[in-house]
């Protein structure tokens, strides 16, 4: 079990190096990368925005209830903003990305494998890593921070909706405290996390698709593995990055 895990991590690491090596040539064709940003990013917008809104609204409710006990309702904006920017935004977006865009990437590449399209490219002296994998990987890496930013914005709007419009928190206090308390370090932490999760989720998705068994069952299993591995690794990485940023 442990040996299998180490072997898998090793294979994914080698795969990452090969994909990065092909990312330069892939970037030379910006249209295909932009197309993949659209596929992974724009097509995930609805689910990201809806989830962001509801997560923000729940934060607003729970945060108001908690802060009211200490008479600090005005700090609701700070609590929601920090919670979203540092933790919930990157993590929830990554989990949603793995479920929506990651599975789409895996099944698309896996089906290309099953229908001999990747082999046909190899036979035409075209490296599928350059033509198929690298643009999709880059598309995911670029899309993730953008999706996280949108999730955070909509989430903050949701928290404001509940806190200010419903519970009566002073809007001036809500926004001014948020503006004053959120520092560059907090934003940096969110950006670093979103980039790391973008690399992780995109890499897992394209790797599982590329190495899928060329059968219907194989593609199905690879899609399931994408969600499981991406989710677990995202949460593990989140802990490690949080500990690193807190200096613990």
């Amino acid at each position, binding site marked *: 079990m442990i040996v299998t895990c180490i072997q898998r991590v090793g294979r994914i690491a080698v795969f990452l190096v090969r994909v990065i090596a092909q990312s330069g040539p892939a970037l030379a064709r910006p249209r295909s990368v932009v197309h993949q940003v659209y596929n992974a990013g724009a097509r995930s917008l609805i689910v990201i925005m809806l989830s962001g809104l509801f997560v923000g609204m729940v934060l607003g409710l729970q945060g108001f209830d908690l802060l009211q006990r200490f008479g600090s309702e005005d700090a609701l904006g700070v609590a929601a903003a920090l919670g979203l920017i540092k933790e919930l935004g990157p993590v929830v977006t990554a989990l949603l990305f793995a479920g929506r865009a990651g599975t789409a990437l895996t099944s698309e590449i896996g089906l*290309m494998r099953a229908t*001999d399209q990747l082999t046909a490219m190899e*036979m035409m002296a*075209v490296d599928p890593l350059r033509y198929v994998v690298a643009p999709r990987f880059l598309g995911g890496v670029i899309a993730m921070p953008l999706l996280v930013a949108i999730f955070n914005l909509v989430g903050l709007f949701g928290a404001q909706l509940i806190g200010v419009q419903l519970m009566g928190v002073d809007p001036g206090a809500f926004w001014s405290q948020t503006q004053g308390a959120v520092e560059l370090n907090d934003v940096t932490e969110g950006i670093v996390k979103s980039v790391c999760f973008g690399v992780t989720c995109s890499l897992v998705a394209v790797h599982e698709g590329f190495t899928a068994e060329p059968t219907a069952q194989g593609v199905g299993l690879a899609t399931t593995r994408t969600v499981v591995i991406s989710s677990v690794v995202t949460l593990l990485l989140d802990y490690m990055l949080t500990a690193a940023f807190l200096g613990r």
Partner: protein
Amino acid sequence: MSEPVIKVRGLEYEVGGRSIFKGLDCEVHPGRITAVMGPSGTGKTTLLRLVTGQVNPTRGRIEVFGQDVSKLNRPDLYALRRRMGMLFQNGALLTDLDVFENVAFPVRENAYLPEAVLRQLVITKLHAVGLRGAAKLMPSELSGGMARRVALARATVMDPELLIYDEPFVGLDPISLGVIVRLIRELNETLGITSIVVSHDVNELSLIAHYSYLLSSGCVVASGTPDDLRASPLEAVRQFMSGQADGPVPFHYPAPDYHTEVLGKRSDR
């Protein structure tokens, strides 16, 4: 006779502990259509995968254009593959590109032709397979026969010296079958391309093949012209050529005794 385009010597290939080839020898000579025949599961497609460097042999040597395929690094292997074209059993068209872009794909990726020249080349190739009018269709809009013809246009767009056909006749209606057979013969005759056709369709291969290899149990059991094979006294060859259900290739997959399995052992009753 001129140097063979493909030379296979003592080929052994094992996968998952199962031996696919046990010392296979064969040659493909330039300008000829060479057929590789054999019952299903005998390793015909695997032989193509070995010849094209998709997998490496366990033992033995495969030379293509004088180069040992298993020793080539990726850039050299790609350089070798630029001299080949391959028609896949299912066409393997890229599903996100239309017919025109599918045929243009190898040229766009491997050569830097002006758009006007590329367009002329692709239209010429599509015209040759009778599908110039289908240039804007997507692969999902094509029938099986049309997809096979588009794949053939794509396989020939780089003007390869060697064309490899993997089961080109499978699942085609009689008209599409006749078209593919005619195209394979015409390409060979007009362009002087060396061709390997892997198939188990004896009748179609007899029409076009100059030389045939019959594979069974991991090695070549017979070779020669289609007429030589038809006249062969070997039982394995006769069974295959005349389509007999039972013979050296048994009808039944190895299994325990039928009566025992159906009725159970005496002590079980």
